[in-house]
């Protein structure tokens, strides 16, 4: 009996939490369509999420492309299809690895920082102070972060894809001796607009998921330093899980 009570309580807890998260998203959408528009704040957040994540994106995408090049070359050689390396690297990056790894990197670097920032503002009553001043904290703090994330993630993913493809080129062409023309020609033949489009849709969706979860967890964090630390951990874990789950759903819809 106790087991069923436990399951029931946890189910109600998670349903309630989901409801709160959707209400939070609804408040963001309402706020985003109503003036005043905080353009300067959005640009500042784009700098924080985008420009400051550039180094980690370039680093991870370069090595991802290099690993793809190395693994792909040894696998394709077994079938005598080394010339398909360009297609393999490009399609893997554009369709899957670019959006997913890009989103995970942004979660780790910017999402966790967003949660911690909002969490500290919550526990030090800065959010309450905005509320008493009748400055809507969603408009003032959350909206610029979420809009910036939605705009910036597709751009970061595009950079991830390009650097990753050159990573694969470095290993496949420069190190393992595949013909450069065959590497790029294969890519041109196999990559379609539909692939680029699906990558862009995924990165937009992941931009929303990462900033939504990170802002929600920070905005509603518990008490004290432990509350902020728990919220940050939950934001990173939940963002990563949702990104991977939505990747599956979007892949099945878009292909």
């Amino acid at each position, binding site marked *: 009996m106790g087991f069923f009570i436990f399951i029931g309580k946890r189910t109600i807890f998670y349903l309630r939490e989901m409801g709160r998260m959707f209400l939070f998203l609804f408040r963001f959408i309402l706020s985003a369509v109503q003036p005043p528009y905080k353009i300067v704040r959005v640009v500042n957040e784009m700098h924080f999420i985008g420009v400051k994540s550039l180094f980690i994106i370039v680093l991870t995408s370069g090595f991802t492309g290099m690993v793809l090049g190395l693994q792909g070359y040894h696998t394709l050689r077994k079938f005598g299809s080394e010339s398909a390396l360009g297609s393999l690297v490009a399609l893997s990056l554009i369709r899957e690895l670019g959006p997913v790894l890009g989103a995970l990197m942004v979660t780790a670097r910017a999402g966790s920082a967003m949660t911690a920032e909002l969490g500290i503002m919550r526990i030090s009553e800065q959010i*309450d*102070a905005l509320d008493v001043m009748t*400055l809507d904290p969603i408009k003032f703090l959350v909206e610029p972060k979420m809009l910036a994330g939605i705009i910036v993630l597709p751009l970061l993913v595009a950079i991830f894809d390009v650097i990753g493809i050159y990573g694969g080129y470095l290993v496949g062409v420069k190190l393992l001796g595949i013909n450069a023309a065959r590497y790029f020609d294969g890519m041109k033949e196999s990559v379609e607009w539909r692939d680029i489009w699906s990558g862009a849709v995924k990165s937009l969706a992941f931009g929303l998921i990462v900033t939504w979860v990170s802002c929600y967890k920070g905005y509603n964090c518990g008490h004290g330093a432990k509350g902020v630390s728990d919220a940050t951990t939950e934001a990173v874990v939940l963002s990563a899980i949702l990104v991977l789950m939505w990747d599956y759903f979007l892949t099945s819809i878009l292909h």
Partner: protein
Amino acid sequence: MIKVSNLRKSFEGVEVLRGVDLEIPTGKTTAIIGKSGAGKTVLFKHLVGLMRPDSGSIVVDGADIAALKGRALNNVKRKFGMVFQGGALFDSLTVFENVALPLKELMRLSGGETASKVNAMLREVGLPGMGDKYPDEISGGMKKRVALARALVMSPEYLFFDEPTTGLDPIVETAIHALMKRCKSLSPATYVLVSHDIREVLEMSDLVAMLHEGAVIECSPPGEIVKSSNPAVRQFLSGSAEGPIQMY
């Protein structure tokens, strides 16, 4: 005037406010006292519109903020200013930007007008030339003064203080009290303060409301409350461990 009637609030089945009735008269300073956990902060958050009650009303100049939402609620809240216990200054903004924020966002004043108002207010609270500092570069007493400047710059009709001098040394405490009195003489707002400091409460307030077990058990001027026959009030004012107020 603020009139609180039969205010009730529970958290996860625990009733923190059990029918609070309180009248806060216009132009006076009303202090809310009570032991830790008595519900002072919860009551305070209801008064400034940060929490919504389970039942009851909070009528501010004829408008029940417990029933209002959105723009109508904001119109009432614009009458409020609040000095939070820790200051609640925005740590990514300078002192100047903290005080300028409500002017910039709500009144949309020009840069020159904002600067002259903010600098005048910083002089008023004894912090001229401190505008470029960040909150973590100034002392606790200075933070309280910046928070007071930020609250006063919008000329509120109601000013709320949450533990205005907690954690400050006695000299800074006296300076804050003097500043509060001077501000009150300059702009005759209604002051509401929550405090544990009996000396502060008796010195600063015109009316003292004692909260015990989720209800106001006595509300009277300082001269009368010190002579109260209520055993809980007497115990709290004397700071005795013996009496109806249990420590745990």
